[in-house]
């Protein structure tokens, strides 16, 4: 019987897991241990609901409501001196509870502190764009849309950024396989030659483990070169390749197998 693979998460899985292994946790500490963070948190708490908060690896992590994000970042930028949005993106928790976790990595240069603001949204829900506050969110939100399909309300140009505009599927979802889906394997054939050429050309080989080493159409077969299209039997002579001119190159020692000393005494 074929082993069952979960369809909601097709990423690589560990082939061995100890049933009794309990992972340790990266230590979290209370916000009160850091005076600067505590003051920042007070300011946020005064206006917005904070669901959970802790300090992990010297950075404060604040969980808020999804629709408060614009207000929180505006407060942080204008009053708390968090002047830069370093990074923002999403984490896919669809397999667990059909949600995405969005994080915003904030930096205050005056305080030398970093805060990560986070919230959860349901699958299919859009986030509020913060592009009006931080121009860097323009490209970050586009990347998030490109990779996860999460749209940002109020974004001026909600288009794909890294993948082609006419791509289908969202590559960083856990349901998207590493070597691409069926659309990916036919993308270039369909676009350039049309669907009717599928039988002639065949799908793109996107899994390097399945590359046919006897294929002389696509690969040069280094060291065993043959004219293109030759039937490969596997016993072609090896073409010796000279990597250096005779007498060696200036400053490079020529490797010579014959004059090298081969050490075959394991106890040397």
């Amino acid at each position, binding site marked *: 019987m074929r082993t069952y693979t979960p369809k909601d998460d097709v*990423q*690589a*899985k*560990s*082939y*061995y897991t100890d049933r009794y*292994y309990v*992972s*340790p*946790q*990266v230590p*979290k500490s209370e916000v009160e241990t850091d005076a600067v963070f505590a003051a920042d948190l007070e300011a946020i708490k005064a206006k917005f609901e904070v669901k959970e908060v802790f300090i*992990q*690896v010297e*950075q404060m*992590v604040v969980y808020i409501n999804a629709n408060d994000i614009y207000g929180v970042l505006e407060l942080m930028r204008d009053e708390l001196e968090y*002047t*830069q*949005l*370093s*990074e923002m*993106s999403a*984490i*896919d928790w669809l397999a667990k509870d059909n949600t995405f976790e969005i*994080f915003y*990595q904030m930096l205050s*240069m005056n305080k*030398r502190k*970093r805060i*990560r603001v986070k919230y959860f949204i349901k699958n299919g829900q859009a986030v509020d764009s913060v592009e009006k506050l*931080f*121009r*860097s969110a*323009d*490209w970050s939100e586009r990347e998030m849309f490109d*990779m996860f399909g999460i749209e940002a309300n109020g974004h001026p140009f909600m288009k*794909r*950024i*890294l*993948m*082609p*505009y*006419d791509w289908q599927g969202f*590559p*960083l979802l856990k349901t*998207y396989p*590493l070597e691409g889906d069926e659309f990916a394997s036919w993308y270039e054939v*369909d*676009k*350039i*030659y*049309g669907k009717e050429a599928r039988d002639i050309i065949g799908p793109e080989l996107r899994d390097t483990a399945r590359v046919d080493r006897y294929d002389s159409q696509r690969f040069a077969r280094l060291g065993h070169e043959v004219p293109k299209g030759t039937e490969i039997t596997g016993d072609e002579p090896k073409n010796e390749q000279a990597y250096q001119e005779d007498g060696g190159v200036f400053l490079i020692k020529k490797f010579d197998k014959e004059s090298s000393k081969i050490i075959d005494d394991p106890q040397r």
Partner: protein
Amino acid sequence: MAQVTNRLTPFFENITFDREDNELILNFGPQHPSSHGQLRLMLHLQQEQIVKAHPDVGYLHRGMEKMAENMIYNEFMPTTDRMDYVASSSNNYGFALAVEKLVGLEVPRRAKVIRMMLLEINRLMSHLFWLATTALDIGAMTIFLFAFREREYLMDVIEGYCGARLTHAAIRIGGVPLDIQDDFIEQLRTFLNKLPANIKDYEDLLDTNRIWLMRMEEVGTISTEMALSWGCTGPMLRASGVAWDIRKEEPYELYDEVEFNVPWSDKGDNFARYRIYMEEMRESAKILYQTIDMYEECVKNGQTELMAHAPKYISAPKLDIMTQNYSLMQHFVLVTQGMRPPVGEVYIPTESPKGELGFYINSQGGPYPYRLKLRAPSFWHTGILTDLLPGHYIPDVVSIIGTTNIVFGEVDR
């Protein structure tokens, strides 16, 4: 005019140019010698002046974040080389540091010193490369030859250390794999002694060069607000009036023990960025001299350890693996299954030659990261072109792209 589309023409070329005004759309790239990679710019022009710029990236997208989710932590290390391939050790380091912080490892001092040497050599290599290519774009062929000559020496030093010239993979999670070779210090010292004269050569050729000044001064001016808003970091931010260097402000490794200055300017134009790159080369040389002393001190004190001791996460030294049964078993598990960091998340920024290189790792206790986000500085340094280019003229595009120092391995990841 109706659009006639067929399958043979890609969709983005089916634009009809039937506007009333004189606006011309110029397609710059993706294959253009001065776009430093696969940057496509759609420029809307009024005569020669740009009124709207639309950078289009993604031509080198390899899905590194996706790959990271399907690789054990050590497997991903050589992939990080392919981000900023001009200074690949700094990517290796950023990833290694993030995993070390996640796991809570303490790296031995000697390894830290070697890492700092590698990082600063990479910074010099990157800055020299930047100077060479940017000067070439502007037309200064001599500088290109000079700077590449110096970079070649550094590549030889690095090659002696790790065997590779471009994709080093010279840093491991928990330390460094090897001690530096016998003639490393000697070669490095020879290079560093020559470097001030070399930098002076570049400056003599450029600083008062009429063409260089006309292409650089008052061109591509980024205000402080714009730089902050666009998430600019590194020399881009420092040229715009914010003296923010992560090595200084949030020190990692032994940067709090070395003495160096953070050059900054409030001009914000191309010339300010050029000056900052030149000054940073001098500062890197200063740091390298200090790391040589630190290394020799380590040798004197007999600190020979190069990898952290953490049997759950890091393989034992080769000698132990070959002689002790338990070390061999543990090494086997770490190689075949991979380390399993604790559950949690980190965002660790480092100062790469281009700016703030950050690694966000979310671990769920498995051997594969649940989510890994690469924060590459060049991504936003490309994005800022949207707001920066309008108002400039076509020749300025080349010099502005040059001084933003973008590398597309990093933008597209």
